[in-house]
Each structure stands twice: as C-alpha cells, then as structure tokens.
C-alpha cells in the first residue's frame, strides 16, 4: 500500500513539473527569433526544437521529481543512523531504461534527419547570391544582375541560394530569424545555404564564427521584400552604378565599400583597425621598420597589392593579402581617386 502511495505522489510531482517546465519553455520559444517564422527553414527548426523541449521538460521533471520526493519521504530522521532497504538492482528495470531511451533517441535522430531533408529541399531557379565575408564586413553579389551591395536584399516567398565564401579566415552566415547557419571557408571553397524567406521585414545578418577583433561587429542588414518591390530595387541598383557612368570618385567609394576596405579604414579620421584614409594621400607615414614614406600613388598601390611589405607603425599586419587580388588596376585607380578627395 505504502509503495503505491510513494509512486502516486511521485507521479503527481513529475506530472506537475513537466507541465510547468514545458509550458514555460513554450513561452521561451515564442520569444525566439525563429518564432517570427521568417523563413521556411525556421519553421522546421522551431517545430523540432519544440519537441526537444517537451522531452527536456519531462526528463528533468522525472529525475528531479523522483529525487525531491525521495528527499522528503526517505530522509534520515534527526539523530538516527538507519540503513535503507537492501535492494541491489533489478535487471528488468535496467534493461527497460536502456531500451526505452534507445528507442527515444533513435526516434529523435529520425526526426532530425527528416527536418534536415525538408530544410534542404531545392526549388527550381532559386535566386543566386554570392556572399563574400571578410574581416569584418559582408558583400553580396547578384550575378544574374551584375550588382554588388552591402546589404542583402531578398524577395519574399522564393528560394535564395546563397553561395558563401571568405577571403581570409572562417566566418559564419547567420540570420537568426531565418534559422540555419553556414560557415564561410577561405581559399576559393564555396559552401551553399538555401533559405526561403517568407516574411517581409528587416533583419540582421551576424557573423557567428569568431574571426578576430571585430567579429562582434561583423553585421549586415537583411531586407526581405515582396517580389515586385525587389524587382524595382534591382532596376534601381543597376541604374545607379557610378563605375558605369565614369564617376571615378563615386566608383572608388563604391569599390571601397563593396570590397570591405571601410570595415578597417575610417574616412572621418576616427581610430580603427587600419590607418584612417582621411588625409592619407600625401601624408608622411612612419613605418614600423623605422623609415618614413610619403603616401603617393605608388605607395598606396603597393599597400593594397602587398599589404605585408610596408607596415604602418602602430598597426598590426592584419590587412588580408587576398583582398587586392580581385581588384583590377583600374579599380585601384578609382579607389585612389576617392582617397585623394578625403582631405
């Protein structure tokens, strides 16, 4: 009789705890970015996480519930030193609690595989965007339209195929509201990530892999808009390219932005990872080998083509060498014209 009472009370504790924790965890999920359901992928993640959380609630309640009940019912009274019941084990029970969790984890693995498959479903003709990450900025190239931007603009309700690469170290692409992450690898390796944005709105892309000093600040705006607006945006972007209408300075500024130079170089004289570009042209620059040079065209070209060759005193040699590789001589000329205007 007593036995049954013990089990009954324990069951009540476990049930109450499970319900309480489970309910609270559902509130937590509701506050998560994926609950905005801004992409199809987020929906799958959220649904599997919800199931995990119920399992967590139950298991935590089960173990803690039994423990708490034992502390109350089976505690040693003051001053006594009695032994408990002599029970060494129970093979049936032990097999049970090996087999049942085994079944449960296999079930979860199955669910995990299934949701992964759903997340990676490939649609025909996705919008391709080449994403480049570098210390510490992002740029987005839309190869079909020949535009490069600093913010990621995506049409609603169609699949985007992000083709990710890095020019220096490992970074990671993550828009919390979209759900999944994918690392960007250096050395020309391309990794793909598919997202199907489903809610117009503004989001933030954040780098999720430690990549040095300003990893925390490696952010970019993400804007999802209805198809029609997106098309209009594309047309406007194509039209406004300064490099096509012979605007050297504007083109230089755009190139500096698109290639991430401005992540390290300020144009207003403020301190940053690299020397400021304000007043750079013609300035006397002290190098860390003790010499002083005048920042003329040749020096600047050199600094971009071979950043490690001359290091400005007080700065570390962190400017990526690969960054200049994608720039043509004309590009660099344009950038220099832009730097010249920063006096």
């Amino acid at each position, binding site marked *: 009789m007593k036995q049954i009472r013990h089990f009954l009370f324990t069951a009540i504790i476990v049930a109450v705890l499970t319900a309480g924790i489970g309910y609270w965890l559902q509130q*937590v*999920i509701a*506050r*998560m970015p994926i609950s905005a359901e801004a992409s199809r992928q987020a929906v*799958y*993640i959220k649904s*599997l*996480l919800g199931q*995990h959380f119920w399992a*967590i609630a139950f*298991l*935590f309640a089960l*173990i*803690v519930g*039994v*423990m708490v009940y*034992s*502390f109350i019912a*089976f*505690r*040693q009274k003051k001053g006594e*030193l*009695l*032994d*408990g019941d*002599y029970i*060494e*084990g*129970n093979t049936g029970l032990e097999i049970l609690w*090996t087999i049942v969790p085994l079944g449960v*984890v*296999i079930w*979860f*693995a199955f*669910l*995990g*595989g299934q949701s*992964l498959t759903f*997340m990676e479903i490939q649609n025909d003709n996705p919008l391709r965007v080449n994403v480049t990450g570098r210390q510490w900025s992002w740029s987005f190239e839309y190869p079909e339209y020949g535009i490069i931007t600093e913010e990621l603009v995506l049409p609603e309700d169609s699949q985007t195929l992000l083709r990710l690469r890095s020019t220096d170290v490992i970074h990671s692409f993550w828009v919390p509201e979209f*759900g*999944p*992450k*994918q690392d960007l*690898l*250096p*050395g020309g*390796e391309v990794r793909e990530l598919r997202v199907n944005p489903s809610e117009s709105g503004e989001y933030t892309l*954040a780098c*999720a892999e*430690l990549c040095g*000093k300003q990893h*925390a*600040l490696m*952010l970019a705006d993400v804007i999802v808009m209805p198809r029609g607006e997106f098309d209009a945006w594309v047309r406007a972007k194509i039209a406004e390219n300064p490099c096509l209408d012979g605007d050297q300075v504007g083109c230089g500024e755009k190139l500096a932005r698109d290639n991430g130079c401005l992540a390290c170089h300020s144009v207003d004289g403020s301190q*940053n*990872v690299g020397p400021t570009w304000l007043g750079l042209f013609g300035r006397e620059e002290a190098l860390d*080998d*003790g010499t002083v040079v005048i920042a003329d065209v040749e020096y600047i070209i050199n600094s971009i083509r071979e950043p490690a060759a001359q290091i400005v005193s007080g700065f570390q*040699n962190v400017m990526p060498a*690969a960054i200049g590789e994608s720039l043509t001589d004309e590009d660099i000329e344009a950038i220099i014209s832009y730097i010249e205007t920063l006096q």
Partner: protein
Amino acid sequence: MSFFKTAMGRGLIYQVIGHIAGMAFIFGVRFGLGLPVFERGGLVTPAAEASWVFGGVVGTLAFLKGTGVLDDWLKWWRGLSTPDHHEDKPGWQKYFNVSMDHKIIGIQYGYTSILVFILAGIFALTFRTELLTPAADILKVTGNTPSDILDFFNTMISLHGMLMIAAILLGVGAMINYLVPLLIGAQDMAFPRLNAFAYWINVPGAVLVVTALFLGGVDAGWTGYPPLSSNLAKLGFQTFFLGVYMIGFSSITGGINVIVTILRMRAKGMSLFKMPIFVWAALATAIIQFTATQLIGLSFQLVMFQRLFGMNFFNAAQGGNPVLFQHLFWFYSHPAVYVFILPGLGVIGELLPVFSRKPLFGYKFVALSSIGIALIGFFVWAHHMFTSGMASYLRVPFMYSTLLVAVPTGVKFFSWVATLWRGRISFQTPMLFVIGAITIFLLGGITGPPNGTVSTDLYLHDTYWVVGHFHATMFGGFVFPLFAAIYYWWPKMTGRQYNETLGKIHFWIMFPAFYLQSVSQMLTGLYGMRRRIGEYEVALDIQDLHILITVAGFAIALSVVIFIYNAVISLRRGEKAADNPWHSRSPEFQVASPMPVHNYDVPFEVVGEPYDYGLAGSSYIKFASTTAPAAD
C-alpha cells in the same frame, strides 16, 4: 624565501633562465647566419616566434631539471640504481617538492587545479563585466579604442576557456591519483616517477599558456581554429599551443599509469566487478586520455609548424584544409569532455550509497556505462562541425552516434535515483554537492540532444545556448563532484574536519547562482546571443539576462572564497577527524585519519560487495592477519 628552496620555486627560476637561454640561442643562430636578430624590432613581433617556441621548450626542460623529477631516470640511464622511495620533506614543504607518493601528488594536482581555476575565473569575471552593457565600453582604460577592448575580450574568453579546461584536467588528475590506489588497496601507482612527471609537466605548461596574455593575446577561442590562429599577427598563439601541448603529456602518461595500476595492482579478491565504482570511471577516463590526447597535440603542433616554417596544412590558398584541423581537434576534444565528467560521475556513484545507506542500484550497469560513454564518445566528434562546411553526408551518421551517448548516460541517472529511492538519506555537505551535481549535470545533459540533431544545431551552434549547455555539464560533471570529493575525503587528506556550516553556505550560494548563470546563458542564446562577442545588439533585448549572468558569476566567486576560508581555518584549527566519519564501507575509511604514509600497513582482502549497506553482517574488505574491524 623558503619557497625558492622548494622544487617548485627552483623549477620556476630554472624555467625563466632556460627560456631566456633558448631565446638567446636562436638570436645567436640568426646572428651567425647573418639574419637581422630582431626583425621589425622587438621581442613580441612575429619574427620572434622561433625564439619564443624554442625558449618555451628549453624552459620546460629546465623546469623539469630544476625540480629534480628527472633525476632518477637520468641515473638509470647511466646504469645507477636508486631507492624505490625517497624520503618526503616535512610539513607543507612536501607539497612543493617532488614526491612519489600518490597522495601527495594528488594534493599537488588539487591545489594547482584550484589556483588555475581561480585565475580562469577571474578572467571570466573580467569579460563578464564588459557584458553588463551591450556596447564595448566598460573595460576602457586610457588610450584604448573599442576595437582594442574587443580584442582584449577575445583574449579573455580564450584564456578563460583553455585555463578552465586545464584546471579540469588537473582536478581530474587530483581525484584519480589520490583515490585509485586507496580504493584498490595498492601502496602506490604502478609508476611513481612517471606519476610525479605527469604532475610537474603541467606547471611549465600552464605558465606558457598564461604567457600568451603578454604576447598579444590569443583571439581564436579555446578551440584555436586556423586560419585565424595561424595569422602571424598574434604571437601569443605559439606559447598557448606549446603550453597546451605540454599539459597533454600529463594526460597521456597519467592515463597509461592509471590503466596499469588498475589492471595489475588490485587487492586480493578484487575482481573487476568488485572494484569501487570510481575505479571504473578512472579506467574509462584513462582510456580516452592516453589515446585521444595525441590528436590535439598533433593538431596544435601542425598549426605551430604552419606558423614557424610557413607550412600549409590549413592554409586554403595553398591547398591546405582548415576543416581538417577541426576534425583532428575534435577527435580529442569531444572525448575529452567525457574525461572531464567521468571521474565526477564516479564520485557521485561512490558517495550516493554512503549517504543513502543503500547499495548502488545496478552496479554492473553503472560500471559498464562509463566504458560505454567513453567508447561511443570516440565516434561523435563531428557534431561540433555541423555548420563547418565538412562533407554534408557526414552529418546524419554523426547525429545518430551523438544521440546514442544519451543511453549509457541515462543508465547512470536512472540508477542514481533508484539508489535514493527507499534509502535513508542524510544531507551533509558532500551529499549536498552530490545532489547539486546530479541535477546540474542533468540540465547539461538534456540540453545536449538539441545540439545533436542537425537541423536544430544549425540554429543553436555558436550561440550562448551551447555556452549554457557546457557550463552545466562541466559544473555538474566536474565542479560540484570535485567539491563533494574534497569535503568527503577531507578527513583522510588532512586528518581534520571542515566546518559543516560553512560547507553548507558554500553549497547554498553556489547551487542557485549556478542555475541562474547557466539558465540565463541558455536563454540569451535562444534569443540570438552569439558566442565570443564583446558587444551585442541592443535590439536583442537581452541585457537583463546578461546582468543576471554576471551577478551569478560573482556569487560563484564568493562561494569559492568561502570554501577557501573554510579550508584554511580547518587546516589551522579544525577539529580532529574521526577515522570513519561517514560510516563508509570503503577501505580507506577503515584505517586512520589522516591516511597513513604507506596507505595500508596491513594488506586487505576483498570479501564482499563494495556497497552492501543494509546487508547485516557483511563487509567489503577484511585486513589480512590482524583483527582490525571491517565496515559495519
């Protein structure tokens, strides 16, 4: 200063001298070859890498020579013989000198662990303070820009992580070295000199890791992924990698020693299934330590070569593969997390029956589950790499293997609560820490499977959810059990009792503070907080949670201070401890407190089961020829 007359003091002086000599040698070579001695001016520039590395190696050897751990071996090499045991120094000095007594070595591991733990804790409190506000503005000293603060922040988290892990490895060494010979009735470990070596090599290793702080820091996290860590801008990586490499030697040699000791030196009658449960845990731990550790050593060495010689293992531009590093690294570092917890889970298994006065439920299953965890643990490493861009077909098999670990771990939990059920539970400090350990490790464990299923991990990876997960596993599987063990075996170690009230206060601060810290970490992670950022987006609206984490961190520090105070006053004027204050059946409690110098003056024989509490008239061991009373 008598400290400098001890092996520790001498070793450290030798290390500094050796280090300088090593550096000077490289400068000499450069000079001889006609290269500029200081390229681009100064000792902390990348050009000084080779000299720092060589200095580090020579310094480590000099440290070992200075302490004298190598002396016996060097004599053997010359064909001389040495006595089996050396006389230990009197009083406190024996803890700072080379000893071959496993009990002293265990305590040496123990205090070193706590020192490193405190240092790493101070680093945590430092960067936690910065996280009180979203912007990087608190750790501002004159002349540093926000970007310098972020850089410093990265160094702090990296060293916090790595030093904490070093502290864990040391603490694991403390428990295993102190306890295994006592529990199996051996005089000492199988290889006492190797045992001493395994301890002492940690010290120069830890010194090297900390040196990184002064060489520009390290900014790639404890995981040190290249190409970030192979970027020459930060010299600190070299001493960081080298230091960890030295610490690795400790795990390898220590692991071998433990296995031989357990397999060959058990008391008469102690078949494998009559060993105390902690010994099973130690065996499983050692299996991981002596194999997997080689791979973290190799992975770090390859990055060092890449930096030193311009090799290209992980340099993608030259055909290298950064993801390969992650495979090599996690092949050790996942199994390593089971190194952190298995001894702790062993302590739980050891103490629960004592304080519930009831046999350990399902002894065999618990014993084998340790081995099961260790073995499955070798096949799950890539779950840290679901987003890494490794071949994507690898993800599903690693998801299955990862989730399988839950099965043997679950067996432990179910057996523990079944041990409590219908026991007679009392709540002294060691038991409180055991209870804390179980619930906290549970929290850490059940937050593992969501990381294990690929699709959810793609969201959770590199968020504070993972940070919460691993703090819970490490506190529950290591920190709490370590404190339980310290309180429980304190009488055997020191011959004195600690203050029970202070012990309870320690627990009642640390336990809730830890829940606050860990659960808040998990929540910020779910709400979008990334790892390793010194500045977070205001829009996430998580500042309140961050403040809670920081406050909880300081509360934990306070509880540690109370513990240290308790330890100090107990050593000074603690009450003399009884031989068997817990009424335990375990062999070490059947002899005097503190433990006699040579453990068991009379060897014992195993005549029963280790945990038969409640079986009238039974006992676990019987001393050979005397009438010494066995357990009640």
